């Protein structure tokens, strides 16, 4: 059957050639990969769209740091802006200046200005999630100030690859918990949910230096760390001026407020997503103000129990389990001993409890937004979706009674097993 064989061979050849992707093939050096996409309110149009395009010439090894701008100082990212009323179709307009086809396949972050976030993000998120190049695993960031400014001034000095910064941002919160990272898909889900409201990390360019910075709160007033900072407020010197700390709080698709880095830790602890972080607590036994440094881990996921009474009032009990490890005692008190350890555990638990209660109070009274996701537990009381949706949890949340109990157990005391006060400086 030579004819049949020839036919089969020809067919196989045609299939191989037409369906291996060559039809729409595009070499990597024909594509410009957008690594971050920024959204601001435009002056002439509805939107100012900013794209951070990977500059392969500099990523390849010769570039000094990320960031970049449209001027002659070409970093590993080229930032371009365009006023427009739409998102995806505007990408074609960038092509008239960039000689490559723009692609969102490697976009790691979508950055929205606070101004836009306060007006509502639904109309911006919807066209993007439909677009086949968008990945649900990209980060959502809210910029205090202009997203374009943030993109232009963001210069991660330690990274050659600008995408790595965003990858690390996603994971780094596990080391300190100073923001709760949010993926596009999860943020979009939260906007659609009847059980939870959304949050997204705050980013900003540093606005203060050590001269103009807000003073840190006195020891023993805010017991866990210094003042609770938002992005842009941390008085660092040197390095990358771009900061990420704190979270924007949403009700529906609109941003209604923000919480600082410390409150973001409480948020993560309440959600059971806090992994570890270095915190301080006011020394409970020292005569004069002093701090005890602790490295804290969440021992296990927080337990959230909800009760709904016949009138529809909801009571929520949250149990948080933490394992602090002593990393520094300024007063020299021997907290390694059994009695003192219990005192320190108690003091620490109370401080975390107070912080969590304060955050919950803010979310109920100020934001009226369930960013913790208590609704996810409340809906277990309902067998079907109709009564749950009619219950209108998000409207009831501000009236819910929430009790937080923190259980702390100091498991380890670092490299020292006993603290002996030294003789002082006299």
């Amino acid at each position: 059957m030579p004819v049949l064989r020839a036919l089969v061979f020809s067919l196989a050849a045609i299939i191989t050639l037409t369906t291996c992707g060559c039809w729409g093939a595009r070499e990597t050096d024909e594509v410009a990969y957008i690594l971050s996409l920024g959204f601001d309110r435009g002056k002439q149009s509805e939107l100012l769209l900013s794209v951070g395009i990977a500059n392969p010439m500099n990523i390849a090894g010769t570039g000094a740091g990320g960031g970049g701008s449209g001027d002659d100082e070409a970093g590993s990212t080229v930032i371009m802006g365009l006023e427009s009323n739409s998102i995806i179709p505007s990408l074609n307009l960038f092509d008239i200046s960039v000689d490559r086809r723009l692609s969102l396949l490697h976009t790691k972050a979508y950055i929205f200005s606070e101004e836009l976030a306060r007006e509502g993000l639904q109309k911006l998120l919807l066209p993007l999630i439909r677009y086949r190049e968008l990945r649900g695993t990209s980060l959502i960031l809210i910029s205090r100030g202009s997203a374009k400014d943030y993109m232009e001034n963001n210069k991660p000095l330690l990274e050659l690859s600008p995408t790595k910064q965003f990858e690390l941002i996603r994971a780094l919160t596990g080391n300190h918990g100073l923001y709760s990272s949010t993926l596009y898909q999860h943020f979009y889900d939260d906007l659609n949910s009847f059980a939870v409201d959304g949050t997204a990390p705050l980013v900003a360019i540093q606005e203060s230096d050590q001269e103009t910075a807000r003073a840190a709160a006195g020891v023993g007033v805010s017991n866990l760390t210094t003042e609770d900072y938002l992005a842009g407020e941390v008085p660092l010197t040197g390095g990358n001026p771009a900061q990420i700390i704190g979270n924007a709080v949403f009700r529906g698709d609109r941003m209604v407020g923000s919480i600082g880095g410390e409150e973001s830790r409480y948020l993560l602890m309440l959600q059971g997503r806090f992994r570890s972080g270095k915190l301080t607590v006011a020394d409970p036994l020292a005569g004069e103000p002093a701090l005890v440094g602790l490295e804290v881990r969440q021992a296990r996921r927080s337990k959230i129990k909800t009760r709904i009474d016949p009138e529809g009032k909801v009571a929520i009990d949250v149990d948080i389990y933490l394992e602090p490890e002593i990393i520094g005692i300024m007063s020299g008190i021997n907290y390694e001993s059994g009695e003192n350890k219990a005192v320190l555990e108690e003091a620490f638990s109370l401080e975390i409890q107070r912080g969590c209660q304060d955050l919950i109070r803010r979310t109920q009274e100020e934001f009226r937004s369930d960013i913790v996701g208590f609704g996810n537990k409340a809906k277990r009381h309902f067998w079907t979706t109709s009564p749950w949706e009619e219950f209108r949890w998000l409207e009831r949340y501000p009236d819910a009674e929430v009790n937080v109990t923190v259980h702390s157990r100091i498991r380890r005391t670092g490299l020292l097993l006993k603290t002996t006060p030294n003789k002082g400086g006299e």
Partner: protein
Amino acid sequence: MIREGTFGPAEAVILLAISNIARFFLPYPRNLVEIAGSAAWMTLLGGLVLALAGIYVMSVILNKYPGKTIIEITEEVFGPAVGMLFNLVTVSFFLAVGTLFTREFSEAMIIAALPETPVSVISVAFLAMGLAGAYLGIEILARTSRLSYLYVLGGIVLILLAIIPQCNPDNLFPLFGKGPLPVFGAGSLSAAAITEVILAAVLVQAMGGAKQFRSIGFRAMLIAYGLGAAFLATLTMAINYHSLTEFTLPFYKLSRLIYLGRFFQRVEAVFVIIWSVVGALKIALTLYGAAVSLARLLKLPDYRPLIWPLGLLMFMVSLLPPDLPSMIRIDLDFLRPFALLPNYVLPVLVLIIFQLRRWVRRAGP
């Protein structure tokens, strides 16, 4: 006498299971979520019960006529005219499934991987694989399934495991979703609308005869529905049901969410390969089912001359719907209800007529 070849129970189980899970790669799961909400996975439990009942009824019929397939049995029970009519329903059902799957797999491939390739080219590619598979015969298809099942089923399990970090079990609540009636009524009926009961009854002699039928069918359905329920539960846990109803290709969406550190992401390429294998197998199977059923109906000695015209018919009809949403509507509004006819209604009718005749014969002079 049509020569079909033979294969063992293991091949048969895998063949039917892979054929069954093909629908989960398409927009179909979002329909189950639309019907049942957060309890979409439960529709498959109801669907499984119906499918097992279908297999049981079919096995009872096949055991009464050893050595025959459902095509000959239908003709014998209903007589040549009505029997032919019912058998034409079966043939059209296989053609309809093949046609719709060809177009849906092609459209899905465009959305996911080949956005600039014309739909006709992808359809031709799928159909070419289908034609080759059907031409080579069911034995080859069964052995191919057996060889590829580790990659197909293993790949699916791997994707489901890799998505666990993104899962939130709270999304499975409220437990009964849109209510027990939609879940176990419309949802389970839709989930039970499969090809495999009638397909297995057409292939029964190649699978080792009526005695093996029930055990093969039960095992295949347990694997396929078990995997389907796990998939839908994972899907609902990873993406809340409100968002899920919006997505065209939920499984593809799920595979794009996999992120296990900086180095293990973008694994949807694996998914697309599994998808293509399953799509090609499903199209080949339905084309084979249509050709062999028609050949038995027309008392032809060989089914192979029918493959080309039937394949061409599938290709042409698959291009008739103007767009993907229309295609999905046809799938939901036409194919799913239609599937209940040859898989459940026809066997029950055959059984009723058979019993009636027996009673009449016994009551007779």
